[in-house]
């Protein structure tokens, strides 16, 4: 995937999101919507990562708790959350994250592979890393973020 990006243009836009102070980036073209906190219907018996489902303009969207997906602790009740809606295989998913930042245009040349020491779960969902001025941005690979949920039963 990174290769084809490189071929197309020298830079790419990423929507930055923050989860527990860590900055992530989602390729902006994959983002359909950014939502405030939504009323989510729980889905009993589903994997832990599945927060539930919600109604987005008449379509049913499956909400994914990215914190849980990343093996991070649950959000406190008083902490706000937002979600980013992405499409995967014809279905909509709402990725619940802490907050959404700016859209950054990042040079492909700055893209680096995941460091070998990165935790496996993170390696699984990330295609690589960008060095920003103050911090590092983990690029989220949406398909692998979603794909493995169905397999990882609780």
């Amino acid at each position, binding site marked *: 995937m990174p290769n084809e990006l490189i071929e197309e243009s020298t830079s790419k836009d990423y929507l930055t999101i923050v989860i527990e102070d860590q900055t992530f980036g989602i390729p902006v073209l994959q983002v359909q919507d950014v939502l405030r906190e939504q009323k989510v219907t*729980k889905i009993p018996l589903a994997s832990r990562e599945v927060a539930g489902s919600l109604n987005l303009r*008449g379509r*049913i969207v499956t909400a994914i708790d990215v914190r849980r997906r990343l093996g991070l602790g649950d959000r406190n009740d008083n902490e706000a959350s937002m979600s980013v809606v992405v499409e995967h295989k014809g279905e909509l998913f709402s990725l619940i994250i802490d907050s959404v930042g700016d859209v950054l245009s990042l040079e492909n040349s700055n893209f680096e592979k995941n460091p070998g020491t990165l935790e496996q779960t993170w390696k699984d969902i990330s295609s690589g890393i960008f060095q920003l001025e103050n911090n590092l941005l983990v690029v989220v690979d949406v398909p692998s973020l979603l794909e493995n949920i169905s397999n990882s039963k609780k």
Partner: protein
Amino acid sequence: MDDLIIDFITETNESIEELDADLVNLEKNPNDKDLLGKIFRLMHTIKGTCGFLSLPRLEKVAHHAENVLGRFRDGDLEVTAGYVTLIFESIDQIKFIVAEIEETGGEPEGGDAALIAKLDAAYEGKDVSGDASAVGESTSLGDVSGEKDIVVNIQEKSLAPGEASIDELEAAFAAAPGMDGIVNSADSKEKDIVVNIQEKSLAPGEASMDELEAAFAAAPGMDGIVNPADLNKKDPVNPKKKKEVKKPKSKKEKTDKPKAKKAPAKTLRVAVDVLEDLMTMVSELVLTRNQLLQIVRTQGDTEFSTPLQRLSHVVSELQEGVMATRMQPIGNAWSKLPRIIRDLSIELDKKIELVMTGQETELDRQVLELIQDPLTHMVRNSGDHGIETPADRVEAGKSETGTISLDAFHEGGHIIIRISDDGKGLPEDKIRSKILENGLATEEEIGEMSSQQIQQFIFHAGLSTAEKVTAVSGRGVGMDVVRTNIEKIGGSIDLRSTEGKGSTFTIKIPLTLAIVSALIVEAENERFAIPQLSVRELVMISDHGDNRIEYIKGSPLFRLRDRLLPLVSLGSILGLSDKNAFDQVSKLTKENDESESETESETEGNAFDHKNLYLVIAQVGGYDFGIIVDRVFDTEEIVVKPVAQMLKDLTLFSGNTILGDGSVIMILDPNGIANATGNIAAVDDPESKKNSDGIKADSEKKTSLLLFKVGGDTPKAVPLSLVSRLENIKSEDVEYSSGQMTVQYRGTLMPLTPFDPSVKISEGEEKPVLVFSDNGNAMGIVVDEIIDIMEEVIDIKLHATQSGLLGSAIIDGQATDVVDIAHFLKGANKDWFEDGSDTPFISDGDEDEDICPKKLKKRVLFVDDSPFFRNMITPLLSMAGYEVTTLEKPQDAIKMCEDGVEFDVIISDIEMPDMDGFEFAAHIKSEDSKWMDTPLVALSSHATPKDIERGLNVGFNNYVAKFDRDTLLDTLVKTLADAE
């Protein structure tokens, strides 16, 4: 593929379907001219259309079949089963070719020489005498010779496309009435095609075909061919006589049209996809409408209310309209069945009649498509395994012809389809051994199952009971697939079968799949939708009173009108409650239970502050179970949307949807819940329960006892099953007739007996009365106070000395007198036992003899058709220490006899429907019976010397009057002693 060809295929398939049904009818009424004409025309249409589209092989088959049909129609040939089979063969061949064309776009390789030879043989075969005249009348020697050419060609094994082209031509001409000129001019072109085909250079042939098609397209309708005037002419197979097919006659034909089924002007072919899309959009519209309505409801009266109301109406109508476009009569799915049954009956040499009712019942075409295969399969099954051969049927005392009936009707927003046959029913023994073979249950488990439960196993995979695998069924895939398919569309299937009598399958399916009505419930603050289809009823439960949950080792159960339903808590099976809330409830109820048993009816005092729960009684495939939910909201029309891919393996949900308030809600799948609760198949339904009651020994069973008080402190108990009703009788209602206390009860006079002289209904007082009734006789026993109803095993500890009592037992921790109701019945109503004779045939029993042969635990079989007597005598016998098996029908007893079940003594009623006691006795006392040596006691209200003599002659060892309990017990002891 060419549009024209696609249309042709569709049309041909439709025509063939119609043909199938008609030909079966034809076999029944060979002389039905109208029918013959119709079949002929349909064949002809197929043939004619083939001509246009250059499908020589197909056309040839149709043509030859048409020839034969022509003879039938003219009455030259008699329609026999053999001929009909031949026509079926041709249709099958046509179907095969059409299917091939549909798939590949061209006709399959190979020829149909054998079939055509047969058809020609049929055409000529029976015709030796009438041949000359037929040829003469047909005025077209050329035609006949053409036929002969073909035959010759076949013999030479050359396919002779050239000859076929004559047929093509004929078809083409016939199909183009009034276009003689054009056809003639096209004649040469037609021949070109022939040449081209022979040369196998298709391209130019096709081109010229197109031209032809264009020319023919201008022909004014194909009506000409179906000219009824033709029927009377003597040469139906000579389309060259074009002059007959003239316009004036077409008019005539039009007047005849109402008879014909087709009304093409009024219908329009619409692609299914378009309808599907439309339906989806309407579904969305309905949802949005619901949402809007919900909003307006909270807003009160706004300016939106009125237009929204109108919008709502329009949407409803639109929904109905679109639904209507998808509705098709179920008869469409059945059209193939007569043919299947016909083929089956010939193949298996059975006589089967298929009776269909309710064909016009409409349902969604999507549903229709999905049930078509299961239905076909089941009807086939009925014909194959259900209906016996004529010989077997006659032997079983049935008519030679078996009947399979198909019935469809609406019931409460669902469609019920019933498939029943009067065949041999499900072979329980075979199912049993199959179950063991496949390790689906252990022998012990099977032993405990009712026949209903055993029968349900046919829905398991790999359980075909057909002894031999026929082409028709018995391949081990079958009912499980049927069930899965039906459940997939939210339906359910139920089965009732009586060995020897037949089986009935009942399928319940929703009208449509797109929009379903669902009950919204709440568990642990989460809402869920349950499809209304599987909801039987709702019950509010509280932890005290009648509607309470009971527990057996923590498993919640609920008694619903004498039926025990297993319960599941929605919260806990969904893993929402972490068992806490549920356990709390169960703890509460348990506490209540305990307190109840310690100090009666003190539960009210335990005023735990706990919410009321609701039970959703759901039914899946004939089995009922309860789902415990916290709250029940209303029902809502929902549009089922599939769940996301990653949630697919959650079997408890069948989909999700958006409610009127905009929130997403999961739709529960009752089948999934049933599966999640374990073997729901182990639960009885009332009918099977009755059966198992009949078969099981009753002695160890708990009996429901009605406890009441009379005078003193010792409570009295009487089996609840004997008591018909409890009434409160006021003193002013009591009348006296010849010293007997009576009361007007339900239009008759009911005698009242005080339980003992101490019970009196004083002036202005009201007393409870136990009403006993059987066969229109009723009597009441006046008591002082009704205490409670208990379930206990009656174990008489002390035998009574006082008349009217059986003895004392410990019930609910207290010594209780068990009442002998027979004593009262006898006293109150001489007519109760019809002849009232108090002198039993053998009554020389010693009163002091121990009537309780407890240690021996003799096994007694008691056969009586009257539930009242079964209920009365059974406890009596079991209290006397016998192990009692009660049966309603002597036939069941004979079955047990055949199964090798053993008893020490058999007691049988004499007056029974179907088979009386004498017959029964004759049966089991016959030479080869396993019960030949088992003593048999007649228990009857008929005790005239003549009856007694007859009884003894047929093998009864003793004869006892029905009401005389002491004599009965004595007789039993004596009989058993004699037998030893």
